[in-house]
């Protein structure tokens, strides 16, 4: 077994390979890690590149692929790519779910029944509270999209990002859980996580600090290089953070994967100080 496969099997490196196909987004969320918005540099990964990395990931011992951004579904080729990725490894793709209407929703039809989950951000059961962070009209679009996806046999997870989950009003969280259940998403597919103090959240003084010691190592590939976490390739004031950069080399994948294992050194799995978010 290679050092990379061993590290994955032992839980020292996350079992999922993350990829950023793009950085641009149709929203401008107040806590966005990557300062994503319409008009920002797209920093694209081509679909062929993503497929090559996924094949390499499987060979190295990774057991899943994660797609994040930016809003990945702004890329017209994404549904086709997801179908191909799902033939290689199970896929989770993070989305704001505001684009799942008309031709974009129709393009998702072939994904039904494949090992693909779309993780959708929904921060509150109250439309105003949700939309304050994520933009006007977001709540209505999300609650409309989730049943449409489920109806097509596409797996849905709901991700709730809170300023401070520990002190959040439990009653409000209960209402949110009632909502996602009513939409067809079970508790096992609902994750609650803190705002990470990087990117736009750091500029706004929001969230919890998150560096190498707080984040679980998960290899993440972007147009700018390989990072130690999907929370790593953050952008602040237009500048890419490099504190979680592993290598600029992303191909072959064994190069950044091996470098991540070396960078972790003898660190044991499940560091106490970690935030435990994946």
């Amino acid at each position, binding site marked *: 077994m290679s050092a990379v496969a061993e590290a994955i099997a032992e839980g020292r490196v996350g079992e999922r390979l993350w990829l950023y196909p793009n950085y641009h987004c149709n929203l401008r969320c107040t806590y966005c890690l990557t300062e994503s918005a319409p008009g920002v540099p797209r920093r694209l990964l081509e679909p062929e590149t993503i497929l090559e990395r996924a094949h390499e990931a499987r060979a190295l011992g990774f057991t899943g692929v994660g797609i994040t951004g930016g809003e990945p579904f702004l890329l017209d080729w994404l549904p086709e790519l997801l179908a191909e990725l799902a033939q290689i490894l199970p896929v989770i793709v993070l989305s704001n779910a505001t684009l799942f209407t008309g031709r974009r929703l129709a393009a998702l039809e072939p994904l039904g029944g494949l090992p693909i989950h779309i993780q959708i951000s929904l921060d509150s059961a109250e439309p105003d509270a949700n939309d304050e962070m994520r933009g006007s009209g977001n709540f209505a679009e999300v609650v409309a999209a989730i049943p449409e996806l489920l109806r097509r046999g596409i797996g849905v997870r709901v991700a709730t990002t809170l300023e401070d989950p520990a002190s959040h009003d439990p009653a409000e969280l209960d209402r949110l859980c009632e909502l996602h259940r009513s939409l067809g998403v079970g508790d096992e597919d609902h994750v609650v996580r803190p705002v990470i103090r990087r990117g736009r959240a750091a500029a706004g003084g929001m969230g919890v600090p998150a560096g*190498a010691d707080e984040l679980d190592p998960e290899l993440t590939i972007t147009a700018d290089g390989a990072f*130690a976490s999907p929370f790593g390739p953050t952008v602040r004031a237009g500048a890419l*953070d*490099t*504190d*979680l*950069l*592993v*290598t*600029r*080399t992303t191909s072959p994948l064994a*190069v950044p994967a091996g*470098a*991540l294992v*070396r*960078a972790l050194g003898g660190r044991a799995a499940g560091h106490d100080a970690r935030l435990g978010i994946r």
Partner: protein
Amino acid sequence: MAGVLVTPVEPAQAPLLARPHYREGGTSPLVSSLAHVPEALEVTMPFIATVLGPSAIAARTKELVILRTSARLECSYCVQTHSSVALDSGLSVAEVRALRGEESLEEAFPAEDERMLLGWVDAVAGTVDPVPAGAGVELREHFSEPEVVELTLLCAATVMLNRYCTALELPASPATLQRLAAEGLL
């Protein structure tokens, strides 16, 4: 700080593989520029440490090669940095000046082995022309085969660093400049 072409990577932004090369209170312009490509930094710094650092060859001898090469390549960063290192390695101010081409090499280095070595450095690094056949024969009278290999690699590695530092306009550290000013070497 690094030169105008490349912004130095500040300690708070140091990539994981670069962090061991950052010392408390700062790091060298060489490290803070290479940190942009951590996988290159990860192998380059140990290479530099192995080739330019302590080894079976005396530090004084190695600094003759490094400083003379840097002077021939006109690398401001390396000349200034290694003028200071040369002083720490036992060279006199007059010897440093001579290596930099500011005073007579013959007068500063009367020993035959050191003159031979400096002639070899000039042949390897002082011109873009091919090294003349047989130019190093006399060197073998004073240095063993492994020593010739190590000293030639040292010269060639210094050329690489000279071109890198000059191209990126890396500035010598304030502490180095202060030291050189005090020694009259600025």
